[in-house]
Structures are given as structure tokens and as C-alpha cells.
């Protein structure tokens, strides 16, 4: 670790990620509270945040566990919510291609919404691929460490936070921060609007299955809108 900590790019990536680390802290606290409420042991809660390392999947998993949903439903819901990592993976792939396989396998584990956004900017700025990889590693390491701290804090002392603070609301705000900046094209807005209507229309489905249904319908709507836009755009 000493070698990494001395690396200029690693430190730059670590430092650049600190605001995002503060931003995700309330979300991590809420996940820790949720794990405690679902009856997880200390080690179980730590395993969830350290290995799954995805706020969306963690919050869905603990809520569904607490509601007594079957394992298959929990796994399917978390998997579909995690499908966006496939997109990030595809977008990062060209940047990571020059790096050794070991690096690719390690950095893939640290791929999150925030790390993706920060690293694409750094890779686009140019320079050698190794520097970009180190920058990504520093940012990913910062996020992972802070995420564990926030989850542990939420697990142990989360119940001390007054309900009047509405800390739970930090969770949708984190997702809004990720998705709202993309509402610039007709297909993206279509995907979001249709998904929003579908998730309400199918709210009667048990065990949050409306999330998967709405997600898939929204993706279909976005794809369709993309075809329509392409057809109607004058060349």
C-alpha cells in the first residue's frame, strides 16, 4: 500500500473523490441502519457493504430481507438494479484496455456510479493509461473505505439519528444527482418518464417487482424513442 500512497496519480484520484465521499455518507448511514433493521450480524452487515459495494443493491436487499422476500426475488431485483454497471463497464473498457488483465480485474471491482463519472473525465484528459488507472484506483479506494465507515457507523449508531432529520431522503437525492444531469435528450427523458409512470402503475406488485418491470419498460421506451429520433432527424 505504501507504494500506492506515494503515487502522485493515486493521491490525486483519492483527493478528487473526497467530496463524493461526503456526498454518499448519508446514503451509507441509511444502508447501515437498514442492515441492522433486517437483523444482520455485524459481520453480515460488513460483508454486504464490503463485497456487494453498491448502495442501490444494499438498500433493496435489506428492505426485501426485512420483508421476508424469497432469496430468488432479492437476487433478481439487486441484479437488475446493478445492470447499469454493465453500461459503465462498456464505457470504461476502451480506457482500461492497455492495462494488464490483473489491473482490469481489480479496477472492475471498484467501478461505481461516482468512480465512473470521475475517471472518465480523468481518462479523457489524456496522459498514459497507467496514470489513469492509478487515478481510478485512488478514487475507488477512497469511495470503498468511506463507504465501509459510513455503513458501520449507520449499523451501530444510526438509530441515534432523529427521525425528524429525514436522513432516508438522502438516498433518492443521491440517485437524482446521478440521473438528472442526463435529462438532455428526447430518448433519455422518455425512458425516465415512462419508467416513472410504470413504477407507480405497477406499485401493486409484491416484493418491489414493480422496479424491475418499470426499469425494463423504461429501457424499451428509451430505445424506441431513440429509433424515432433517428428516423425524424434531418440529415
Amino acid at each position: 500500500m505504501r507504494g500506492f500512497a506515494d503515487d502522485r496519480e493515486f493521491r490525486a484520484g483519492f483527493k478528487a473523490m473526497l467530496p463524493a465521499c461526503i456526498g454518499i455518507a448519508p446514503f451509507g448511514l441509511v444502508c447501515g441502519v437498514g442492515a441492522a433493521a433486517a437483523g444482520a450480524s455485524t459481520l453480515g452487515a460488513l460483508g454486504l457493504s464490503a463485497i456487494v459495494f453498491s448502495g442501490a443493491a444494499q438498500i433493496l436487499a435489506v428492505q426485501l430481507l426485512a420483508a421476508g422476500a424469497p432469496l430468488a426475488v432479492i437476487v433478481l431485483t439487486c441484479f437488475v438494479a446493478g445492470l447499469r454497471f454493465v453500461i459503465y463497464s462498456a464505457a470504461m473498457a476502451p480506457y482500461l484496455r492497455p492495462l494488464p488483465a490483473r489491473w482490469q480485474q481489480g479496477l472492475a471491482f471498484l467501478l461505481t456510479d461516482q468512480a465512473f463519472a470521475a475517471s472518465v473525465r480523468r481518462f479523457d484528459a489524456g496522459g498514459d493509461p497507467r496514470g489513469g488507472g492509478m487515478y481510478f484506483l485512488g478514487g475507488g479506494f477512497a469511495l470503498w473505505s468511506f463507504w465501509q465507515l459510513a455503513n458501520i457507523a449507520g449499523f451501530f449508531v444510526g438509530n441515534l439519528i432523529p427521525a425528524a432529520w429525514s436522513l432516508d431522503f438522502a438516498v433518492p437525492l443521491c440517485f437524482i444527482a446521478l440521473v438528472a444531469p442526463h435529462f438532455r435528450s428526447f430518448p433519455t427523458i422518455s425512458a425516465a418518464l415512462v419508467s416513472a409512470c410504470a413504477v407507480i402503475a405497477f406499485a401493486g406488485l409484491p416484493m418491489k417487482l414493480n422496479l424491475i418491470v418499470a426499469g425494463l419498460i423504461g429501457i424499451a421506451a428509451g430505445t424506441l424513442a431513440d429509433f424515432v429520433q433517428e428516423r425524424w432527424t434531418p440529415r
Partner: protein
Amino acid sequence: MDTALKLWSVVLIVGALNYLSRLSFIALFARRRVPPLLARAFRYVPAAMLTALVVPMVVAAPGGAWLPALPKIAAALVAGIVAFVTHSQLKTLGSGMLTLWVLQALAPRFG
């Protein structure tokens, strides 16, 4: 199923699936060409999935009263505009929480 066993099953299976999703194009299909339709659909996964996650956390539960949900809806709209304009995660979080706190403090006067 025992709670601990179920939780660890979730940790290991979801952890593995999430890792495979993250690894997919970086390593697994690095040399494959993505079918054009799939590539097109992929672009809309974040917008559709993140919206599906956000909406139930903001609006009222079906059959529930709408009035108590209004502060959250207003706060989410403010946060959305701030996110769209500033691209800043911290400003989005700050403006959203602040709007919610102010409206919740004012709500009893209109109740």
C-alpha cells in the same frame, strides 16, 4: 431459511453478479462486438433504472395520502433542477435536504 444464511447467500450471489456486471465489457466481452440493438438499449439503462428507484422513495404509497408527500416531491424537484444545472452531488444533496426541512417545518401551519 435462517436469517444469517439468507443474508450471506445474498452477499455472495449479489456480490458475484454485481462483480460480473462490472467486469463484463472490461474483461469478459472485451473482444466481442455488441449487437447494435443491445448497444442502443444499454444507453437508457441508467435513466430508466435510477428513475424507477427514485420515484417510490419520493411519492406517496398507493392509496396513501398525497398531502404529506408534497414536501418530498417539491424537494426532489428542486434537487433535480440543481443537479441538472450544477452537476454537483453535494449541492444536489444540500438543496434537496434543505428544501425538505424547511417545508416540513412549515407544514403544520397549513395542516
